[in-house]
């Protein structure tokens, strides 16, 4: 036995590692690019022996598989679920909705719960990938607690196919320490990119937001699939390309290091960066842009449906949802949860923007996800 403490306890080390990862490399995009998300999914479905079996077999089974986003759940909350129900949560982390859809279309995922963004819901329903919810099995879900604006994309043909969880926007972040100005529009974003901020701006590697926010430059709809309007957006993207620092959805490291000054940005990233570096501010383009909500869904092919309901209900419980929100930094859109959040989160105008700014925003449309012209524009933009 030694009385000197010459090492940090394993638990503290893991916590530090986790907080380091949160601030640096683990992003949706990171996983998308590396295929790590897909790889873990393949591995766990191909080799069931690798998945630890819970000793206590509850009535819902010993396992539930969730496909979700990075840094979206506190692992301790999954431990609590396992303790309460006996079902171990197997988490598959993904880089994009498109990647999840690709896996679901290929089949054989073994997923019980899929966290999906609003614009994919109609496709999932149309392809018969997800099922209608039986709300009687979700006592913790209160439809009146979520603004219909956020909840409605989960209702297709009058049936509730998806339960809202976490809402946010896509704007841009700016490091005011490196640039003296206060752009408030997408027009200014693109003009600054080609002028004063040349070489210091990041555009998402993502058709929905890269093309959508270029469309906003001209005042077109964020979701436009009009060939002429898309041509204009392409022209702007190609013109801006030589002035860009990067085309990536993993923009936090470059913003934090100061290499980039401005970037398209999602709410959660803005919250995290602003918390550590107050000079990084978040701006919603006045012309509009994207508002989104994520949803819990249950695939028709889910092997553990009882466990899927149990897990969703467990995470919807307001106190648990508030714990999760403090972990991931997004607003949940659930009024019961808002009331439980600390003041610094409740008062944040990143999480809760002014109503008039919200009114101009649009939910992403399913058609953008399958429009071939948009896919080709992104390819030409990236290879230009």
């Amino acid at each position, binding site marked *: 036995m030694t009385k000197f403490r010459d090492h940090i306890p394993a638990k503290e080390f893991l916590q530090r590692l986790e907080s380091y990862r949160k601030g640096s490399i683990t992003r949706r995009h990171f996983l998308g*690019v590396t295929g790590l998300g897909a790889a873990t999914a393949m591995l766990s479905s191909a080799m069931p022996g690798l998945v630890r079996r819970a000793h206590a077999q509850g009535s819902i089974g010993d396992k539930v598989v969730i496909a979700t986003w990075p840094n979206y759940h506190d692992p301790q909350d999954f431990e609590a679920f396992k303790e309460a129900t006996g079902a171990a949560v197997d988490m598959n982390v993904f880089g994009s909705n498109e990647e999840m859809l690709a896996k679901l*279309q290929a089949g054989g995922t073994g997923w019980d719960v899929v966290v999906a963004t609003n614009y994919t819901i109609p496709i999932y329903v149309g392809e018969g990938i997800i099922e209608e919810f039986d709300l009687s099995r979700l006592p913790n879900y209160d439809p009146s607690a979520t603004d219909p604006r956020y909840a409605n994309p989960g209702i297709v043909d009058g049936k509730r196919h998806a339960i809202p969880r976490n809402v946010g926007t896509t704007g841009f972040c700016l490091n005011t320490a490196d640039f003296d100005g206060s752009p408030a529009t997408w027009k200014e974003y693109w003009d600054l990119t080609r002028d004063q901020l040349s070489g210091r701006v990041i555009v998402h590697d993502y058709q929905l937001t890269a093309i959508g926010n270029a469309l906003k430059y001209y005042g077109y709809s964020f979701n436009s699939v009009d060939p002429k309007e898309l041509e204009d957006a392409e022209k702007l993207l190609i013109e801006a390309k030589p002035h860009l620092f*990067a085309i990536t959805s993993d923009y936090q490291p*470059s913003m934090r290091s100061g290499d980039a000054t401005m970037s398209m940005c999602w709410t959660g990233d803005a919250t995290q960066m602003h918390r550590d570096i107050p000079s990084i501010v978040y701006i919603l383009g006045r012309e509009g842009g994207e508002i989104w909500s994520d949803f819990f869904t249950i695939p028709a092919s889910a092997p553990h449906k009882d466990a899927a309901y149990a897990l969703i209900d467990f995470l919807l419980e307001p106190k648990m949802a508030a714990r999760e929100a403090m972990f991931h930094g997004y607003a949940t859109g659930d009024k019961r949860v808002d009331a439980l959040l600390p003041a610094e989160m409740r008062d944040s105008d990143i999480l809760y923007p002014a109503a008039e700014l919200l009114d101009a925003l649009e939910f992403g449309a399913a058609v953008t996800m*399958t429009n071939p012209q948009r*896919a080709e524009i*992104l*390819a030409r933009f*990236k*290879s230009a």
Partner: protein
Amino acid sequence: MRPGLRTALFLAPATAWLLVMLVMPLVVVIVFSFGERGAAGGYVPAFTLDNYANLGARWTAFRNTLTLAPLGTVLCLLIAWPLAYFLALKADPRWRTVLLILVIVPFWTSLLIRSYAWIQILGGSGLPRIIADLGLGKPRLINTPFAVMVGIVYGYLPLMVFPIYVALEKLDRRLLEASGDLGSPPWRTVLQVTLPLSMAGVATGSMLVFILLMGEFLVPQILGGGKVFFVGNALVDLFLQSRNWPFGAAVAATLVAVMLVTVTLYMRAIRRLSGGRDDVALM
């Protein structure tokens, strides 16, 4: 047991593996490449040549790959050959094992993590700051083709070093002495004896590096900031983002074809250079 049967048994695992892991996927890719994209993405059976007719839409990706893959291979070779020469013929035998391990050590960490490390080195607060402090201007290094090339050479160098090292290590030293005794200055011995005898290693190393580079997508994405687009990147986008599997399959099949042609031509050239010997040494 008859010898024929024994051989068949010995080869069965490898044959099964190749069938399941190589032949079947390749057949799937070729079949898919004649299909049509479903309304919500994916694959719908059909017979059309549209996907191949549309290949021009990814011409830039092919051009970038076909420029950077050979260039990366040549740079690896130029750096690896002298290093392998030193390790095999000049290094103190007592230190040789240690030095060889040092060449492998980077492989113990994933290329992904190492590429992220290069972001720090080439980023604004890394090398460019040091260069700026020396008063030599403030160059932009990260997210350029240069950064991609640095990442590629760094990542694949050991694959080039080892085959060349092996070829040089088993080289008959008496030939070098004979060359010296017959009056050749050292530089001529290297050019006329050592170099030709290392060609098998050079061929193997170049193939390993070149083939992997043709499919590369990680380094351009991470160190090129998504602005340098390889065929590998086009494939990732086609399969995982726009989910145009048939077009993706056509691009993949074309890449395989291009690779087969290039590699065949290369092997022929090497055979001619090494004087008709076609033994390729792999470690």
